[in-house]
């Protein structure tokens, strides 16, 4: 909240950043060596993978292959440039270097890889030559994370064979962030007991919601930073937590309305023990009553535990603890007014 108006939030900066979406970070480049048995042997030994189809011709044929195949997880290995290139760059700035510079300009100087998803199209066999190219798929708005405010950068790496046919794609996500400067009072703050300077250490994920047919819509909307309330399509009554059937009229038909994001603290807890490593303590958990009338369990941000009061007006805020989870939080409404 203290960063409003800084460069990282200006529309001009945002435009420059979003211009990277769809752009190539890495032009198609072939690996140094074709797919080969010695590298496969080193890999499966290091990984302790004893599947015989990687090294034993007859076992591979029995498994329906024409001969030995490379482990799918080696796709990236075939295109790595090796140690020398990583310590002695060739001096030609890549798209990646440029984007990294732009992010550093916004203060996002630290980086942590958050996830990698592979999709494999066909198995590689000895003799295949593999290339890789990388394109920016998405740059998220700034999100508050346990590590600090940052942006998730999603790129897609496409692996092709010599004929240009796609053999695998990899969706790769990094968090580029501003290291947190001080322990925040909010739930995304630093873990209790961690000394300063260890901020970059990743906080364990918050407990996952159990998603099912009846509640998925709410968490999906939250990922888009929309706080929705389930509404009966027949009698129009609102309900939360959601469920498949309207207790007022018995209808199974429902839709949602988007909450205005205003309410007041109905009750609250300041949690001290036991400490879950995903949260900073003391942790303020509240039941907020929305102006629409429904209540929800949530976290309060931007307020000291001692300053929380029942009846306090609050407005919607968002917490993005990790790329797969966004949760509504609330902050004092009067603090918001003062800031303006």
């Amino acid at each position, binding site marked *: 909240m203290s960063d409003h108006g800084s460069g990282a939030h200006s529309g001009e900066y945002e435009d420059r950043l979003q211009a990277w979406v769809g752009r190539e970070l890495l032009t198609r480049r072939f690996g140094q060596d074709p797919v080969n048995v010695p590298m496969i042997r080193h890999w499966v030994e290091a990984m302790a993978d004893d599947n015989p189809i990687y090294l034993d011709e007859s076992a591979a044929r029995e498994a329906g292959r024409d001969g030995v195949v490379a482990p799918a997880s080696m796709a990236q290995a075939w295109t790595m440039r090796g140690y020398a290139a990583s310590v002695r760059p060739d001096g030609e700035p890549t798209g990646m270097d440029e984007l990294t510079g732009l992010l550093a300009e916004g203060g996002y100087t630290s980086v942590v890889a958050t996830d990698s998803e592979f999709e494999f199209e066909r198995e590689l066999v000895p003799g295949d030559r593999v290339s890789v190219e990388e394109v920016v798929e998405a740059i998220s708005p700034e999100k508050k994370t346990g590590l600090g405010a940052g942006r998730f950068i999603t790129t897609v790496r496409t692996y092709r064979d010599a004929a240009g046919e796609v053999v695998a794609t990899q969706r790769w996500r990094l968090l580029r962030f501003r290291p947190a400067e001080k322990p925040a009072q909010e*739930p995304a703050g630093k873990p209790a007991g961690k000394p300063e300077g260890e901020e970059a250490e990743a906080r364990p994920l*918050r*407990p*996952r*919601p*159990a*998603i*099912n*047919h*009846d*509640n998925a819509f709410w*968490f999906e909307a939250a990922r888009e930073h929309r706080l929705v309330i389930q509404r009966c399509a027949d009698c129009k009554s609102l309900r*939360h*937590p959601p469920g498949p059937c309207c*207790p007022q009229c018995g209808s199974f038909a429902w839709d949602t309305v988007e909450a205005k994001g205003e309410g007041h603290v*109905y*009750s*609250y*807890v*300041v*949690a*001290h*023990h*036991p400490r*879950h490593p*995903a*949260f900073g303590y*003391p*942790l303020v*958990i509240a*039941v907020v009553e929305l102006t629409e009338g*429904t*209540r*929800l*369990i*949530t*976290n309060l941000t931007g307020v000291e*535990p001692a300053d929380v009061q*029942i009846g306090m007006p609050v407005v919607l805020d968002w917490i993005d603890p990790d790329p797969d*989870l966004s*949760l509504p939080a609330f902050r004092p409404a009067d603090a918001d007014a003062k800031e303006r």
Partner: protein
Amino acid sequence: MSVLPGAAAIAGIGATEFSKESGRSELRLACEAVLAAITDAGLQPSDVDGMVTFTADTSSEIHIARNLGIGELKFFSRIGHGGGAACGTVQQAAMAVATGVADVVVCYRAFNERSGTRYGLGQADRPVDVSADRAAYSWMTPFGLSTPAQWVAMFARRYMHEYGATSEDFGRIAVIDRAHAAKNPAAWFYGRPITLEDHQASRWIAEPLRLLDCCQESDGGQALVVVSADRARDLPHPPALIWGAAQGSGNDQHMMTSYYRSEITGIPEMGLVGRQLYAQSRLTPGDVQAAILYDHFTPLVLPQLEELGFCPKGEGKDFVADGNLELGGRLPFNTHGGQLGEAYIHGMNGIAEGVRLIRGTSVNQPGDVHNVLVTAGTGVPTSGLILGADA
């Protein structure tokens, strides 16, 4: 007229020692408690033909029946919702006996709740599935609201706001529990009373709850034997007649987090239990001489007193501060030391204390007790009993 009131009685009680590390399996604890209760009732394992426990118990009746030589069972049943099940097991047994479905039914609960799976650590890291029960935690655990103390603290804060109750008002409950436990050799906190100053000096767990507002965690087992009132009269101990036995789940009921009702300072499911108990027994709160009220956390004792008609709404704190719950008071309470002082056996040890009060054998016996009211877990679908002496 209901066939239930007075038809059945608790004729035997039995427990293991209460500890922090039993060093034995939960099944063995259950077997020991069940055998002790059968022996206390002057019966043999082969006399038992029904068993009831909690869905939360890990030892099915078949394991106990097999190990103790109970043999054939004609009735077996389980009650859900954690500690809310306690008195519900006795209701099941009493209904089975009253209808002739079974003759001798044992209710039991045994666990290594301290040395094994600790409920107090919360739900945060339990496995995720798509069941409605698990999905209910989706509205809590991602926000860090995952332990029983935190769930209760949310109610307690609102109660303080509406009625002006304070941390000291909660602390008085702990002081009484521990005073009674201090005189009970079976209690974990035997010989260790606390003062209100000790309570106020104890650290925060989940504000407004301090450490000494929170029940201990225990290993142990407790069992009860239910037979017909007629049969009980022929057994060694004076029967504890079951005049009332009721369950209750309120409107818009959730597990520990019914925060969405128009008001959250009461415990409507306990009010529902109380109304049934008085209707069944044809008694009023004025006819009840002692109470064993579920005390996993001190704040929810106050609204229980209100819901059960012992004092008006919002005046639980005054009722307690006036000394009514002490041994010489209007309604001696948790004479065994409660779960805070004796042991946390999911409310089943409180039912055993209710039986001792009727027998006149409590270590803190407050004189003649004709009727005692016992409750099960608060914040969850719950249950209650009125036990009475034979006329």
